[in-house]
């Protein structure tokens, strides 16, 4: 898919801007603070219905405007066009697809696939488990939009069970929420494990992204309680019973998908502990590009790629390698404060309005 036109109204520092976009993509070159990231954030917003950088909707509003609007026109791979309008005002947020208000977030995820890459992706390899869960939950939702409802249901069970643990409950109530947790957890895990399987296959097919090692990184699931998912339902229930005192003390659910992690290993060793910064950086970029290929292969939609200041930290060789991992025909946006990034992406046209003082 391609985004051909973007209009921003009171979206962060874009008071009223309209952009005609190149089907191959655009370079966005300008100093920090010129609105490059805000532009990419607005494009990314179209794919997930919220700010990827975790800005609250009211924080997005330009100075003291009443609200903001994103209008985007997409050309689908089938040739037809699709218009998305997102408005935020005091009365709330409204998403319209071709003029019709969206009822399901999963509908947005079904049609629009956008992947955002930024230097902070390094935390996918070396950061906290929460960062990895956030990435994988979003990635799985892009590949399987039904996962959004599954995950939301699971998190609601956890919230309810945590509320119960704070009270003087009767044992039967506990059992009901225990079995609710087990059921919802199982559903979440089936999606996560399936996604990992596809991802690892994708990595195996990719060229070697890290020079000094034999294989590409490999991802595995790390249940917070080892092998919890392999127990029978009765065994899982028994385990939750055993945890009861600790859970009462902590007043929250101490086992489940909301605490699980993903391990990234290189030649059998944990990348978090053993890899160099450069290796981690390449692995994080490759992870997102492997996800892009997965989306393209399994949904037949070509995702849009947003590279936010990625290339400043890569040498020319690595920059070219990253470029070589981008599938042909994908629309690519590259934002950078340095104009020399154009040497790697000569086919992209530079978007006006981001120069010094803009």
């Amino acid at each position, binding site marked *: 898919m391609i985004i051909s036109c973007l209009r921003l109204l009171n979206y962060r520092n874009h008071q009223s801007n309209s952009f005609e976009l190149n089907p191959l993509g655009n370079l966005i070159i300008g100093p920090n603070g010129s609105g490059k990231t805000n532009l990419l954030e607005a494009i990314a917003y179209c794919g997930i219905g919220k700010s990827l950088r975790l800005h609250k909707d009211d924080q997005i509003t330009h100075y003291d405007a009443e609200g903001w609007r994103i209008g985007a026109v997409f050309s689908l791979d089938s040739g037809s066009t699709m218009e998305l309008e997102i408005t935020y005002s005091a009365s709330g947020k409204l998403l319209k697809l071709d003029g019709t208000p*969206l009822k399901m977030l999963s509908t947005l995820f079904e049609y629009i696939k956008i992947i955002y890459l930024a230097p902070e992706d390094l935390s996918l390899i070396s950061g906290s488990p929460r960062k990895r869960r956030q990435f994988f939950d979003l990635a799985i939702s892009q590949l399987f939009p039904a996962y959004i*409802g599954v995950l939301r249901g699971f998190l609601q069970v956890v919230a*309810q069970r945590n509320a119960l643990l*704070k009270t003087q409950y009767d044992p039967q109530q506990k059992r009901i929420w225990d079995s*609710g947790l087990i059921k919802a957890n199982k559903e979440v895990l089936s999606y996560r494990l399936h996604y990992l399987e596809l991802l690892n296959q994708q990595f195996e097919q990719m060229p070697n992204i890290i020079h000094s090692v034999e294989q590409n990184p490999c991802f595995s699931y790390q249940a917070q309680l080892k092998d919890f998912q392999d127990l029978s339902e009765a065994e899982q229930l028994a385990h939750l019973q055993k945890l009861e005192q600790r859970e009462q003390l902590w007043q929250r659910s101490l086992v489940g998908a909301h605490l699980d992690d993903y391990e990234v290993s290189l030649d059998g060793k944990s990348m978090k502990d053993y890899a160099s910064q450069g290796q981690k950086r390449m692995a994080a970029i490759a992870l997102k590009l492997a996800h892009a290929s997965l989306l393209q292969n399994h949904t037949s939609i070509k995702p849009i790629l947003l590279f936010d200041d990625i290339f400043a930290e890569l040498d020319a060789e690595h920059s070219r390698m990253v470029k070589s991992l981008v599938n042909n025909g994908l629309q690519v946006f590259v934002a950078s404060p340095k104009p020399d990034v154009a040497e790697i992406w000569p086919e992209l046209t530079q978007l006006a309005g981001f120069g010094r003082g803009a």
Partner: protein
Amino acid sequence: MLKSPRFDELVAKLSSLPGIGKKTAQRLAWHLLSIPKEKALELSTAIQNAVESYTTCSICCMLTETNPCTLCTSPERDDSQLCVVESHSDVFTLESMNEYRGRYYVLGHLLSPLDGYGPDALGIPGLLKRIEELKPEELILALKPSAEGEATIHYLTELLQDQPLKITRLSVGLPFGGDLEYSGALTLANAFKRRFPA
């Protein structure tokens, strides 16, 4: 003096209604105060009349003007089916489908520790009594497939497992109302047509 404690009280009462935020409540309050007095008072009279004449049915807990309600007393309804719903509005929804001909029971709440609702908040004694009197063949748990709905279904199924009842539930999947918070997509009416054993 633009605003007064009385104005603030009106806004507070209006914004306590579901789906009405503070801004809307303020707009409504200004509107009520700017229209002719008798027009505004018609609203308060209508509220008073309705509130005073409605009560909950002593059999099914549905809102009604007659006690017991017509859904419970009508000889046209099928005694072999009893449908358990969360709220009064669910009964309206299912009745507007014009397909279901059985009886109802309104729980009032779903199990939700976050809201402080345990089994006591659900009208369980009334439900057990209703089942005992009606002796239906099928008990339909028409509850939304959310975390709370699932827990309530689980609880009721366990509670009633020794009764000679066929207990059915609605198709699982997305919660009614879709996965965005502000809209309705998959409806109770849709899901009601697809039932399976609980």
